């Protein structure tokens, strides 16, 4: 079975004080995560206060590389099938995302992936992940 990735409408990005610096970075091709300035732990999803200690947090560039923790190809939630996944970044946090630019039926847990950016309906660049070659 082959289910080639197709673009689907992503809706508009949500722009608020919590997301604005993140989407400013994705517009320039960069994925950022948050670190606590007190306890230095990374967390996901990004928050202005650390969910470990309620300390202030700062942005940090992530390499955009990781491994698929779990994945599911959703086939009947609309006309276009898509692969929803949790990707564990090499920085040690796991984020919900989509796996793109491949045969979705070939995607599996444990696969190495790298970040790519797909435009939402309003042009906001949304980080997604594609399998590494080989």
């Amino acid at each position: 079975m082959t289910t080639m990735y197709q673009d689907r409408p992503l809706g508009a990005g949500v722009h608020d004080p919590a997301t604005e610096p993140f989407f400013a970075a994705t517009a320039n091709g960069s994925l950022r995560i948050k670190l606590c300035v007190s306890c230095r732990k990374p967390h996901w999803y990004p928050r202005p206060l650390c969910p470990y200690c309620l300390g202030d947090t700062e942005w940090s560039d992530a390499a955009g590389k990781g491994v698929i923790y779990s994945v599911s190809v959703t086939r009947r939630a609309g006309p276009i099938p898509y692969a929803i996944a949790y990707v564990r970044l090499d920085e040690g946090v796991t984020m919900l995302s989509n796996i793109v630019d491949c045969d979705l039926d070939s995607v599996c847990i444990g696969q190495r992936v790298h970040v790519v950016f797909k435009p939402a309906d309003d042009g906001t660049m949304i980080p997604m992940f594609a399998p590494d070659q080989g």
Partner: protein
Amino acid sequence: MSIRRKACITGAYEHPTRKAPDKTVAQLHAECARGALEDAGLRLEDVDGYFCAGDAPGLGANSMADYLGLRPRHVDSTDTGGSAYLVHVSHAAQAIAMGKCDVALITLAGRPRSEGSSGVAPRLTGAGTPDVPWEAPYAPVTVNMYALAANRHMHEYGTTSEQLAWIKVAAATHAQYNPNAMLREPVTVDDVLASPMISDPLHRLDCCVVSDGGGALVVVRPEIARSLKRPVVNILGAGEAIKGQLNGQVDLTFSGAAWSGPRAFEEAGVKPSDIQYASIYDSFTITVLMQIEDLGFCEKGKGGRFVADGNLISGVGKLPFNTDGGGLCNNHPANRGGMTKVIEAVRQLRGEAHPKVQVAHCGLALAQGTGGLLGSRHGSATLIMERA
């Protein structure tokens, strides 16, 4: 301080409707309230505590308490999704133990079937929900947020689709005896595997029904329960928990039942092997499997083997579950399955389940609920009850 034997469930009612386009949600709540109070042998004016969750229309408990004509001296609108009604039973027992009320009414109702709700529709979340900007673009829907947990479970422990299908087979075996069940036809493992794939690895028959309806419970002080005509069902212990993404250390191998379950068993002073009947929330087959492991009915990772070969079928297996047909076959009112889980456990303890599925001499039962999404963030509640 514990709630052990401090309060009793004396009224339980499941609305028979599965499709109610001509009734409002408020009316369904009221019909459930009437049913549970009639079952208990109590009157509306006896109620001095009221509990409802997010399915209740209006602001918290305000609108429904007024609509029902109540003058409660204790209210609680805790909302942990489908697990909320188990939390309400626990909170009602706490309130009764503290003297804050004597007769607590808990209601649930909804019309997702008439309103066209679906497990593949985007989940509506209020503006300002903090996780939405980070997740909505990836199209999480109800079913794929359970499928992610199922795939990880299969990867870690070798769980199979055939094993998951046995959960549906057991529910359907029970549902054939429930005249109100939405799906009454028995199914086979092959039927489940042949049904359309919705989101890998969950097929259509791994998913619960979408139904209109509701239910209600009445929780009272033990002296009141003993003065009424119904069999006395004691609340022995309860636990609750919220499990989320763990700050990005996502772990889909366990549910919040791993936290709420031990708390309930400790308070009740019993162990999993003592339980004679279990209502386990079955939004999807994987939900049941993970909660069974997390409650300690089997070792973590061995749930697939545990649920296979009819082990959940009453009269056949070791752990009779969801003898009303559960959410998979009977009813999932308001897309919140916790209420019906408690109701069937009460039927079992009273000896009032269908004779074909009644557990002999059922003296100790458990009800387990989750609410929200197994794969991202959910509430969990565990309730242990005994026949006095």
